[in-house]
């Protein structure tokens, strides 16, 4: 009996002495015989699969070679938990020798999962058979099986399989799943942060934008820079000169005291002029000193202090 893949089958039983597959051009599910996994059934007081999976490694401590890395598959079987440990690298290497490329493998199932479907021994090659012993699927040499027993064949087409594991993108890709998750998460976070930052940066001028829109809504004419410049060029000099005139008058008023009197003050288009009569030379010099500090030009001498400033 040969249980290797038929051309139209998408399930394949994998065992050590299987024949190589030639020209596999479609994806398949594989069913591993116990030659490729270690099985333990335990009654555990855990409720969820992830809890059972957390303790899977410790359960196999005494059974596995720790120089290799193992993967674990856990599922609930009746009231117990079924634990399967397998080495995906070894399985992959074996599949390669049989001409099965890893990317052709869709899902991996374990012969143990066929427990309800194997009642009589199933011959897998000339020397061994799959046998259900106390609800554990085992490979048994045909030599030790009673000759009177009739072997069944495994109809892979009609098999109903559930709960398989994927080959794992770690083996199908140049980048492992772990690296993919790590780098993918980092890239996603970086992208997210950048988008958030970008949005925040753009938002940082939204206040100014809103204010500008509000101002322009009130005066649409100001949208034109020429109009703005024209208005500013009209008012800026006015503001500057008028402030200067007022400041100068205030400065002149500071030159006055009970020892000095204003004789004349004129403002015309270009200049402001004042004549202050001081009581004596000392006051006159003091007035002159202060006037110079305030950028006035001193004209004449004596007690009549004449000051002038260009506007």
């Amino acid at each position, binding site marked *: 009996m040969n249980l290797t893949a038929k051309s139209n089958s998408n399930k394949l039983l994998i065992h050590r002495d299987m024949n190589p597959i030639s020209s596999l051009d479609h*994806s398949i599910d594989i069913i591993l015989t116990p030659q490729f996994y270690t099985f333990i059934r335990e009654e555990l007081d855990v409720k969820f699969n992830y809890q059972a999976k957390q303790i899977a490694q410790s359960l196999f401590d005494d059974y596995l070679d720790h120089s290799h890395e193992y993967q674990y598959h856990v599922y609930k079987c009746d009231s117990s938990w079924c634990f399967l440990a397998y080495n995906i690298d070894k399985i992959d290497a074996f599949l390669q020798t049989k001409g099965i490329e890893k*990317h*052709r493998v869709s899902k991996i199932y374990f012969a143990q999962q066929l427990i309800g479907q194997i009642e009589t021994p199933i011959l897998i090659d000339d020397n061994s058979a799959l046998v259900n012993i106390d609800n554990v699927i085992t490979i048994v040499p045909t030599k030790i099986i009673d000759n009177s027993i009739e072997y069944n064949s495994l109809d892979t087409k009609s098999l109903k399989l559930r709960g398989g594991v994927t080959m794992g*993108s*770690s083996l*199908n*890709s*140049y*980048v492992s*799943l772990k*690296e*993919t998750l790590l*780098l*993918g*998460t*980092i*890239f*996603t976070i*970086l*992208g*997210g*942060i*950048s*988008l958030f*930052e*970008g*949005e925040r*940066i*753009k938002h*940082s*001028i939204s206040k*100014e*934008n809103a*204010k*500008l829109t509000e*101002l*322009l809504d009130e005066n649409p004419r*100001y949208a034109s*820079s020429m109009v*703005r410049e024209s*208005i*500013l060029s009209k*008012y*800026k000099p*006015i*503001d500057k000169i*008028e402030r200067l*005139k*007022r400041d100068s*008058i205030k400065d002149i*008023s500071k030159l006055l005291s009970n020892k000095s*009197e*204003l*004789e*004349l*003050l*004129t*403002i*015309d*288009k270009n200049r402001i002029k004042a004549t202050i009569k001081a009581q004596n030379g000392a006051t006159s010099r003091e007035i002159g000193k202060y006037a110079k500090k305030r950028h006035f030009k001193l004209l004449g001498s004596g007690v009549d202090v004449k000051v002038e400033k260009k506007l």
Partner: protein
Amino acid sequence: MNIMTLQRYKNEIILLFTALFALFGFYYKLSAQSYVEDNKAVIQKQISEIVEIESYKKQWKSKGIANRVNIFKKIVPKSKRKRFSKKSSKVSVSYINLTTNDLNKISNKLLNMPIQIIKLNIAKKSKNNFTMEFTCKW
């Protein structure tokens, strides 16, 4: 490219998309920065110019000024007011026989009023007696 190939390079595809996402995010951030750098200064300049114009207009083109300048008519007794002329947006006033107090009062009013002083002339005639004339516009 068939489904199998996609499945085979699933990790690389995921990485490619996440890396593209990160690159897109980074590009978005850079373009946002450049947009803000280019526009912030321009917007702020526009705002400050408009605010400046508004404040200048409020100051030097105030609507109530035409009425406010009437104060120069009443600020001293009529006998001291030689002339008061208000035309369009221009006012010309001249006073005689002003005391120092009158002069200070008128000067303060004039300096605190947002109008353009076109011409101002204050002259002392005798002790505590001044003449004053000014022309202003708004």
